């Protein structure tokens, strides 16, 4: 948890390298190695690695640590004499108050920047606490738009919020539908009951009718929901053209499994923020159930070599390349780029550099970074679809790797 434990743990490789160098150079070489090390830049990573959302928290941490390793391997922060980034890890246990306490602790330990949250509730607490000391804070995932609308000068979000995502989901669904001759006239929304599901469902049910798609039913379910048969029976009875789920992975698995058992037929399954077409794990475990499902979610740019190289690196580590991994990776890399340009670890300088960022080395379909009140305006989700057992991007066209198949052909 503390910087001290961390140094002992993570930098073992570095220690061995230093030791080997010392052995190779003999005693006289050792001080030289020490002198070459610039003061490390401390980056706090606060994620819910235990508790209910531990899976997502762990994925975030993995992504963030990969970014730090990559940046260090490429020579660290060059404007600071090749200073290395040093991860200071924190576990929020899924609770806002523990996340905030971690921030306080890290600020006292002399942290230079914080990447945190995953959940919106935790991101709200950590950014607010970091604001008290004006510590630069990047939110990695938290999709609530309240995070960046509170006027906290230190808080930035590199990825899109759910307002943007829902609007995008509606617009692109309309395009997909129209180019197929508007076969979809009705939709049913199945969403989880917390912030992201409820917020997304509300926006969707307001906006879909404007596109000529009637929302015939919105079903909210608890986390965990132990059985989805009831919900699926209602879907079967209402026969919507489109099924729009917005839920966490566990519930999504049960929902998808039950839809197959109950032989639900629809023209399309279109998840918003979470679903088969943005989960390599699901596609691997349920290849048949996943086929032709569409998602609107955070995703990397499949035409970018940077993104593909990172994906491969993550998969070589045995990770599923989920949105948590690349969003946290980019949150760290965005922060590091700002520190590089600031050429300083002064808080105001880093914040100013983040606000003025035009960074584009992210491999995301975002274009150059443009921060407005702490939100990256270029950030957007994409549409993906499972086609022949792989996840393809189908919209927007400039990033697409395949054409959408709609209505479903099975």
């Amino acid at each position, binding site marked *: 948890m503390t910087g001290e434990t961390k140094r002992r743990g993570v930098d073992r490789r570095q220690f061995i390298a230093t030791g080997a160098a010392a052995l190779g150079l003999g005693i006289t070489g050792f001080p030289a190695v020490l002198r070459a090390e610039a003061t490390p830049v401390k980056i706090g990573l606060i994620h819910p690695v235990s508790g209910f959302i531990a899976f997502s*928290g762990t994925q975030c941490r993995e992504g963030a640590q990969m970014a730090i390793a990559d940046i260090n391997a490429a020579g660290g922060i060059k404007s600071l004499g090749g200073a290395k980034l040093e991860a200071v890890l924190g576990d929020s246990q899924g609770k806002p108050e523990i996340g905030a306490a971690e921030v306080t602790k890290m600020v006292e330990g002399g942290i230079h920047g914080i990447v945190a949250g995953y959940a919106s509730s935790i991101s709200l607490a950590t950014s607010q606490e970091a604001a008290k000391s004006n510590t630069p804070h990047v939110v990695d995932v938290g999709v609530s738009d309240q995070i960046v609308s509170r006027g906290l000068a230190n808080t930035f979000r590199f990825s899109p919020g759910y307002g943007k995502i829902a609007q995008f989901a509606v617009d692109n669904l309309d395009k997909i539908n129209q180019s197929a001759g508007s076969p979809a006239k009705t939709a049913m929304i199945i969403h989880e009951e917390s912030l992201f599901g409820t917020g997304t469902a509300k926006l969707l049910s307001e906006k879909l009718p404007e596109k000529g798609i009637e929302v015939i039913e919105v*079903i909210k379910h608890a986390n965990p929901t132990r*059985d989805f048969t*009831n919900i699926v029976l*209602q879907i079967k009875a209402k026969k919507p053209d489109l099924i729009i789920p917005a839920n966490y992975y566990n519930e999504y698995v049960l929902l998808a499994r039950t839809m*197959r*058992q109950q*032989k639900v037929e629809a023209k399309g399954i279109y998840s918003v923020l979470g679903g088969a077409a943005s989960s390599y794990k699901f596609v691997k*475990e349920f290849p048949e159930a996943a086929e032709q499902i569409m998602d609107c979610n955070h995703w990397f740019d499949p035409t970018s070599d940077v993104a593909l190289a990172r994906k491969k690196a993550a998969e070589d580590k045995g990770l599923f390349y989920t949105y948590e991994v690349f969003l946290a990776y980019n949150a760290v890399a965005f922060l590091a780029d700002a520190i590089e340009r600031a050429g300083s670890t002064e808080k105001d300088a880093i914040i100013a550099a983040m606000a003025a960022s035009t960074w584009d080395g992210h491999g995301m379909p975002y274009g150059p970074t443009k921060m407005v009140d702490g939100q990256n305006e270029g950030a957007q989700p994409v549409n993906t679809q499972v086609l022949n057992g792989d996840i393809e991007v189908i919209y927007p066209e400039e990033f697409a790797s395949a054409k959408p198949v709609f209505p479903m052909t099975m």
Partner: protein
Amino acid sequence: MPDLAIIVPSLLNGLTTGALYALIALGLTLIYGVLHIINFAHGALLMVGLYAVWFLNTRLGIDPYVALLIVPPAMFVLGYGLQRGIIGRASHGRDENILLVTLGLSIVIENLALYFFRSDTRIVDTPYSFETVEFLGAFLPLPKVIAFFGALISAAALWLVMSKTDLGRAIRAIARERKGAQLVGINADHVYAMSFGLGIACLGVAACLLLPSYYVTPSVGHGFVLIAFTIVVLGGMGSFVGALIGGLIIGVVEALGGLFLGESLGQIGIFVIFILVLMFRPQGLLGHKV
């Protein structure tokens, strides 16, 4: 207003889901209903059972139903050991301490699972995962139909053990009159541990029957604990038939509550029934007067 055509399938589904709840509650009615131990670790131990089934299936290729021969006995040993070695010893016979010890245990177990298995959602892929049985116009998932009959058999078996065996008689004697039972030579610690082990073995059975239609994560147990307590009280403390009927009722209430009030608000039905039963018939549906 929900479509009338789905009420029958929904009811049937509620019954099969309720049977799964009953399976989890059977072990609890023994531990809580007979021994009056409020076992906060019940959910965590269910999770252990589920991981055991998952592990046997994915690593050794053992079918979850074949695992019925392995997991429940192993869980029995675990339960016996926990009660004899930790819970009984640490609680000093005080209710509040039992509560804390089982709470502490659940934290330990859950976090060890997090450490060893990580937090990924694990499922088993069986040839029958997607099989359904058609009955009265409803497609019932085969694993849930099997679980339904499993629950009936388990309740009957437990009832037989409790009423026809020496162990059952000893458990009932201890539950009623601890001092008296000890006077006639019953080893109370041993009997407590046997009952706890038996209760946890039931969780092993539940795990084998649940996993083919569910998943496992380190925190999966939380979703079932409260339901299980509700069923135990509803059915009457220590009544196995009561637990079975209570489980079925809760399954149906959940199904209808979801249909008429919405899936999120519908959960309220379970707790309202629970509160009403406690107020007006605290001995439960099949329990004796308390």
